[in-house]
């Protein structure tokens, strides 16, 4: 049980997918201007990650034993299909949310975080349950990073920013400081 918790905490905080592994940067710098949108996109990501983790585990266990070189192809096809499906589902269930997320839904497909999750999970030979905890942890970490970034940028709207750093440059500098802050989590739980 402790191991599962470590996997979750490690993915969410200590080795945060965005701030430590640089995954999921497109939505990070694109969407994160409003906390609410950022949070919802994070949730969509968690959902896609969960499905991907499960599918990846099944593929790894039963199919890819025989054709490891097809791994990338099958993973990306699964991810693309899942995202398509999630997009249709959101469109039906909550048109408002669909409108708010707009272009960023299909961008989840080319989001390194999802494929990265599947690949890292494979490399570490996680079991089915470990994979689930890893997916939730990674998704939670991604959401956390998105929301933090959105919050900071919302605050930035209220202050005067020198022209020289406006736009993407400022986002990167903020991200750098956030990343440094998260480094403080390293070593958590490893005192045992």
């Amino acid at each position, binding site marked *: 049980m402790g191991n599962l918790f470590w996997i979750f905490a490690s993915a969410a905080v200590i080795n945060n997918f965005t701030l430590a592994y640089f995954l999921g940067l497109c939505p990070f710098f694109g969407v994160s201007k409003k906390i609410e949108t950022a949070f919802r996109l994070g949730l969509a990501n968690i959902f896609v990650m969960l499905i991907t983790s499960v599918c990846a585990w099944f593929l790894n266990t039963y199919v890819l034993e025989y054709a490891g*070189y097809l791994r990338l192809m099958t993973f990306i096809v699964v991810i693309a299909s899942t995202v398509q499906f999630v997009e249709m589902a959101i469109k039906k269930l909550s048109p408002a949310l669909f409108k708010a997320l707009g272009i960023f839904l299909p961008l989840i497909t080319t989001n390194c975080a999802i494929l990265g999750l599947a690949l890292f999970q494979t490399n570490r030979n996680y079991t089915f349950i470990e994979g689930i905890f890893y997916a939730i942890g990674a998704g939670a970490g991604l959401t956390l990073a998105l929301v933090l970034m959105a919050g900071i940028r919302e605050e930035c709207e209220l202050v005067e920013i020198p022209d020289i750093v406006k736009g993407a440059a400022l986002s990167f500098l903020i991200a750098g400081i956030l990343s440094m802050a998260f480094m403080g989590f390293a*070593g958590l739980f490893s005192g045992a």
Partner: protein
Amino acid sequence: MASIKRAGPFRLIATLGIAGFFSGLVLVTVFLATQPLILRNQAEALEAAIYRVLPGSKKQKAFVLEEDTLVPFKEDGGRLPLEDAVFGAYDDNGQLVGFGIPAEGPGFQDTIKLIYGYDVESENIVGMEVLESKETPGLGDKIIKDQDFLDSFKALSVEPEVLAVKPGTSQNSNEVDTISGATISSKAVIKIINEGNRRWIDLVSQIGESEEKP
């Protein structure tokens, strides 16, 4: 301009099918061409590490677990078992030098993978090498380079178990000074080795000398 408008479903499926077919063809070809080389690289790297942690050894033989005893690994095409295996190491005369035991576990930052050499006769560890680590550069990654730390694994007793102690305070033969500034990484290495011992020492002591030379 480019694509054909409103193609029928047959065309769509045909396009994807053909693309998939050629893609598969290319992948299989490249895979078959590169596999021997890849396996050889992996085996060579692991072998080199085994010979480094068991000084004097020139040949190795892999053993895997089968129903609570160690049995020799059946070679096929030069492949070495990369998991759940230990490696007997022998010198030029075929004498057993010791066993190379790979082990891994969580470090400060991520998983640490290492291999250490165990001499059955003296019941000592005779060498340790970190194979993979993502510890903090300049701090935790001293476990890879710090010569004093690495030297403390050259004649390390494993009874009752390996102990990590403050830098400069090691007295008994089973104690290892942690590296100052890399305490947690050092302790992780010790922990990984102790767990490796718990797993393999009894098993390798059983085979000991009695195994056939390779």
